[in-house]
């Protein structure tokens, strides 16, 4: 007896097929069976969208820290996957800065096994570019590729050596995988605490200039040109970087980029109370930078919105500003932030928002099962959300182990109601199913 779920009267926003209209969607077991008004099915569990709920392909995150193995006091793969599902995600790319580092196939397989056991969200481990994230010797990229890795990064340890970065981009071409860079010149950002500008000077905090990012972005684009490799710039934060990426794309280089919800919405000036939850890496920047990021997200220069979900234990963040580690959680707020800050004010269409949060990141990772289209025969990976539901961040407990959300106390509009991974509800009526 097949398991059938009929979503009736949902607005299906599916950039991969260009669909944007109210319709019915029938799921049978792991697959989408039918899309169209008046779809009926015997013995189907019916979910009534009432015309107001939106269905989209399950969200895909290019950048999340799930912390396991090694930092299970901050997050585990299970709690991270639950937070992801609660935020509407069906796939997340887990960063390799764990202990041990995901710089070999054994750690990668361990992450995959733990994710399979949790069963709440697809977890695609990212592999390190260099051994131990030390920036010197390349990892066994092929071995990790065989273990399913599609994105390599030394996140938080920007690859400083031009030669190593060149070789990584060049070598990775053999497997057509992405080299993702956290662009940050180390010498220009020694001891940094926040964005360098008026507020760093006022608050007496050591600044990281936006140029420290753009210098590396410029270098890496030149190296992408030299090597023909696939370069991805993650959590882009500076206006100049957006310009450089736009120009690289115009020249036909294989360059993609993402931006976080917090860089799209918050500013350095929000740090005047030294709130450690707002200490992130790269730092929140100026209004001018944020404007450029918004324009980049709108015109597609920035392909994806990625969370950089960075959970920390309470005692990590309850410290002096310079001692608190950077990072904000993001999986449970990303969709609502994008809806509230970008879609609501009309800066980006709903369809483009879904493209940035699902379709494009799935393409970048080569995840055929995710990102849509939602069409008969396709895997049923999807999210249903209420775009009108208001909520205040932190009022209800997080599903992540961590509470360090930069959006704590902010009112957001848009709430995930259901998430479905391969036809199984991972979130139902707003609550994770396991």
């Amino acid at each position: 007896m097949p398991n059938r779920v009929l979503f009736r009267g949902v607005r299906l926003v599916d950039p991969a097929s260009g669909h944007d209209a109210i319709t019915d969607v029938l799921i049978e077991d792991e697959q989408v069976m039918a899309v169209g008004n008046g779809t009926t099915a015997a013995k189907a569990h019916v979910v009534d969208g009432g015309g107001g709920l939106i269905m989209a392909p399950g969200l895909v995150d290019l950048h999340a820290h799930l912390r396991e193995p090694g930092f299970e006091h901050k997050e585990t793969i299970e709690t991270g996957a639950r937070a992801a599902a609660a935020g509407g995600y069906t796939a997340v790319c887990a960063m390799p800065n764990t202990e041990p580092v995901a710089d070999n196939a054994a750690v990668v397989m361990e992450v995959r096994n733990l994710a399979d056991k949790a069963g709440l969200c697809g977890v695609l481990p990212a592999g390190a570019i260099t051994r131990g994230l030390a920036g010197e010797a390349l990892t066994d990229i092929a071995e990790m590729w065989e273990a399913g890795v599609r994105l390599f990064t030394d996140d938080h340890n920007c690859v400083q050596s031009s030669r190593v970065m060149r070789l990584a981009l060049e070598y990775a071409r053999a497997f057509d995988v992405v080299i993702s860079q956290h662009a940050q010149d180390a010498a220009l950002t020694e001891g940094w605490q926040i964005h360098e500008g008026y507020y760093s000077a006022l608050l007496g905090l050591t600044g990281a200039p936006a140029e420290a990012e753009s210098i590396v972005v410029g270098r890496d684009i030149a190296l992408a040109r030299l090597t023909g490799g696939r370069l991805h710039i993650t959590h882009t934060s500076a206006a100049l970087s957006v310009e450089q990426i736009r120009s690289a794309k115009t020249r036909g280089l294989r360059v993609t980029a993402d931006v976080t919800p917090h860089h799209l919405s918050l500013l350095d000036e929000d740090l005047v109370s030294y709130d450690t939850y707002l200490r992130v890496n790269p730092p929140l920047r100026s209004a001018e930078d944020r404007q450029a990021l918004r324009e980049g997200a709108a015109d597609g220069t920035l392909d994806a919105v990625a969370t950089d979900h960075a959970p920390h234990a309470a005692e990590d963040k309850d410290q002096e500003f310079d001692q608190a580690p950077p990072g904000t959680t993001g999986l449970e707020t990303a969709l609502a932030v994008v809806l509230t800050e970008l879609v609501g004010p009309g800066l980006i269409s709903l369809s483009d928002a879904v493209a940035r949060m699902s379709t494009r990141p799935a393409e970048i990772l080569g995840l055929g099962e995710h990102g849509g289209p939602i069409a008969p025969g396709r895997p049923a990976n999807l999210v249903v959300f209420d775009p009108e539901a208001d909520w205040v961040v932190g009022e209800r407990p997080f599903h992540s182990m961590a509470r360090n959300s930069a959006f704590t106390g902010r009112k957001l509009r848009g709430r995930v109601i259901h998430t479905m991974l391969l036809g199984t509800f991972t979130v139902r009526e707003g609550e994770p199913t396991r």
Partner: protein
Amino acid sequence: MIKHLLSITQLSREDVGRILDTAESFREVGTRVIKKVPALRGRTVVNLFYENSTRTRISFELAAKRLSADVINFSTSGSSVSKGESLKDTALTLQAMGADAIVIRHSSSGAPYTLSHWVSASVLNAGDGTHEHPTQALLDLFTIREHFPSFEGLRLAIVGDIRHSRVARSLTFGMAKMGGEVTLVGPPTLIPPEATAWGAGVSHDLDAVLPKLDVCYMLRVQRERQRQQFFPSVREYSRLWGLSRTRVDALPDTAVIMHPGPMNRGVEIASDVADLPRAVITDQVTNGIAVRMSLLYLMLGVDRA
């Protein structure tokens, strides 16, 4: 009066006036044989010093003692902090012991802000990282007021490492608030370009600035900054931005010289300049006690006893 003193920007012009006026009367207490008044009897003031600063700690300690408060000095070496206790747990402990005021010196900018979220005691910033040092600025304003009838239009230059100076930030904001004209002087590497938005002028030419000054305020230059290459050598720094005997002659006769201490004699200030009658550096120290008495009294004693 404000509950916490975290930044001088919290104070209105009237607040500053009231603090300085009250300090005036407390200054007299320091000239008596028995230098003590009972204003804060039974109140507890904790000096929580995460950074060594003998002069600021002693000044606060004397201020509290002259007001008859119970004073506890909590320094980080040899305490629970050296055993790895967090600021939060230390704060909760002091809270549980019934501290009425916590005076905090910390190497992290913003630490007093963080502390103020965790305790019901009044928090006084005694210098946080490279952010602010509001009581220093108030004692400087007090000292300036002893020599000039009004702050309005008064011309002050702060010379040295503006970028890393909590004294420079607080004094600039304080003087600007009181109607003075501040010029920040030093090498471009040590003056954040955004400083012009603080309501101050910026110059890199000390000699051009000197003839127009009422107050020449020299900052301590740490040799560490030379190692970080903010300037090429101490010798070059001293030649361009040090206050030499010759440079003093370029100052108007009425101008005074100030320094928050401790001084690097021979680096930012020539030794004989520091000892001139117009160098009011020891007055600053004396006034520091009176101003801190005034603050503790106004924040703890008047309405909240």
